[in-house]
């Protein structure tokens, strides 16, 4: 079963020792493998997307070549990174050489100021729906470690236009690859309308939480209508409501959230 989507090789932005320049291997073959299997989550050139960026000198889950090799070979199943496919030793060498070369390129440093970003986070009342370090509302995703699992570009998109960036499932609920926080509109047999985000689903039932964070569970056969609103989000978008500098500050704050409880 080669399921699973989200590649989470944890990277650390904090300055670390430069990657040892031991490999003189040509990185082009590794880049081809990476572009096919890894870039969908880690971004072209490993700049991060739905999965974390990899263009750092030290990757915490893969601090050396052997550890990186193991992560690529086996995946990190509990964090949503699949073993995409079985690789030969030579293919592993090529991928390791390429991924480690990313740390030697200029890091796409976050330009914003995390402390100013935290103030914006509070001003926008993000905490009414998101938890950071145990504090906040639980309607939206827990952001305590969001800087570990998402790249800057994805974080930027997630608050500017969240409908275009609904996360695909990395957890077993509702299932690998499923759109999480998918808005769903339900009309019950007696005409009552309920709108909320999908929590889980099977062919016969569906579970939602409405914006008041109340759980609803339905048998599909009891419903008059069930609409999955792909391309929408119940989170407000902030495009046009923040200056460019504020956007970068907020990205910097979110990227700094690396709570390792």
């Amino acid at each position: 079963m080669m399921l699973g989507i989200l590649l989470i090789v944890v990277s650390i932005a904090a300055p670390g020792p430069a990657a040892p320049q031991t490999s003189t291997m040509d990185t082009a073959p590794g880049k081809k493998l990476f572009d096919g299997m890894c870039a969908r989550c880690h971004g072209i050139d490993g700049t991060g997307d739905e999965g974390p960026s990899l263009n750092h000198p030290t990757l915490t889950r893969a601090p050396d070549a052997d550890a990186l090799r193991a992560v690529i070979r086996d995946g990190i199943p509990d964090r949503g990174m699949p073993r995409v496919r079985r690789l030969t030793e030579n293919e592993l060498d090529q991928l390791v050489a390429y991924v480690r070369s990313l740390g030697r390129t200029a890091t796409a440093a976050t330009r914003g100021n995390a402390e100013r970003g935290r103030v914006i986070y509070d001003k926008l009342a993000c905490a009414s729906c998101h938890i950071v370090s145990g504090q906040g509302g639980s309607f939206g995703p827990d952001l305590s470690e969001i800087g570990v699992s998402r790249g800057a570009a994805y974080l930027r998109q997630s608050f500017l236009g969240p409908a275009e960036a609904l996360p695909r499932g990395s957890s077993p609920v509702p299932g690998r690859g499923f759109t999480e926080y998918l808005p769903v509109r339900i009309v019950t047999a007696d005409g009552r309308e309920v709108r909320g985000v999908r929590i889980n689903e099977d062919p016969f039932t569906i579970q939602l939480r409405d914006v008041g964070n109340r759980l609803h569970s339905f048998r599909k056969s009891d419903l008059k209508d069930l609409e999955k609103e792909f391309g929408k989000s119940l989170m407000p978008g902030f495009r046009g409501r923040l200056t460019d500098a504020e956007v970068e500050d907020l990205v910097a704050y979110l990227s700094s959230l690396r709570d390792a409880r």
Partner: protein
Amino acid sequence: MRLALLFAIALSPLNLFAQVAPPRIAAAESEPANWLTYSGNYQSHRFSPLKQITRENVARLTPAWIYQVRRTGIVETSPIVADGVMYITEPPSTVTALDVRSGRPLWTYSPTIPTDVIVIGSPPVNRGVAILDDTVFVGTVHGHLIALDAKSGAVRWNIAVDDNKFGYYVTSAPLALAGRIIVGVSGAEAGIRGFLDAYDPKTGARVWRTHTIPAPGEAGADTWSGDSWKTGGGSAWLTGSYDPALNLVYWGTGNPGPDWNGDLRPGDNLYTCSLIALSPVDGKMKWHFQFTPHDIHDWDANEIPVLFDGTINGRARKLVAMANRNAFYYVLDRETGEFLSALPYAKQTWAERIDAKGRPIRRPDTAPTLEGTLVFPNIQGASNWPSPSYSPQTKLFYQATREMGTYFFKGEPSYKPGEAFVAGGGRAVNGDDAWGAVRALESTTGKLKWEFKLLTPPMSGVLSTAGGLVFGGTDEGNFFALDAETGRPLWDLQLGGAVRANPMSFAVDGKQYVAIAAGYSLFVFGLP
């Protein structure tokens, strides 16, 4: 002593039937309370003639008992029931006998599996046992075939089918015929040379071996290049079917090795991705039909071949049908192997059409690449090992169908004994972009009669019954019953773990039951 023995036999009439002699399996329909072979009968109908559970009362179905396996791993077992005892397998290669009235274990047997066992190409699972006379037969992940006393679980014999160091292993239920235990191997992902074996049920001595990959000089060898046949794959990893009247065994074969890069093996690569018909007497191949010549997507043709008779163009014919992993439903003449028809039963993007001889005309740009090529069906196919069902009542072929695409990657081939020899792989397009259905196909043509949609691609088999029902399961843990004529859902229950097994039905004390494994448990349902 002898008198006492005779007396005991006279007092327990059940003992007279305790031997599962071959004629009983061949006439399985005449004793529907039992389920004597993997797919219910030699024709692989997975149909129960029992009709106590009906469209009208199925909504009242309730658990009779539940058995929890004691090991982690995927439970893909398909139970056998004979004379009050159910025989199941637990991952990886354990056999357990259960009292069908209570669910209480009667015995359990676990072979010693070496810690360095090589299982490449599937999880370490087992799909069931065969029974013949007073012996139960199981294949193991370390490549053995073991005969157990049906009453006690004691080992009668234990032989190595082939060397697990090279990746040979067994997950499928053997097929028991008169004087023959037939078993196929897994291991194409390790670059094995596939085969089908027959063993003497009494002694474990090998009677014949038929390779699925011809050696130089043998028919079909010209479809390989150089030494590529030596690592040619062609596993026979799922249970086949048998026509007692024609005395022919039908068995599907798997992918060529390496899976996703065919550069080293130009040619059709016979007899991979094929259906082969052979004599159980000597293993000689009577005919073959290759569904996917020179496969490069891992579309094994190991799916269950289903035997039935039907009328094609006004002519009564003996047929064999397969809902192939490559998304086409094929109908062949099972006497001759003549291709009769093929229709897609799921989304496919790889073939323009199937020509008059049954050969696919491929679309360009569907081969795996370094960057990934999106192709339907997915890497695990529109179908896979979970069983279809054929109802002689409705004449419909029921297939749990997987609607999903995969980005196929081409990698480099590198053969080392006992290691993966796959040269690529795939990334399935899952989540909300994939789905599934139980489909009812007109058996002689493959035309869609109805479908019942599922949220995700299923890995559960289906069972049809004379009560007018089709049972199936989902990855989300639902077990459900549909109207066999219309597909209308009539009952469902959440079992709390993925259903990755085949349902079956049996009766005891005059009551019908339906059994299915889900998660780490086996569930048995009956009417209150």
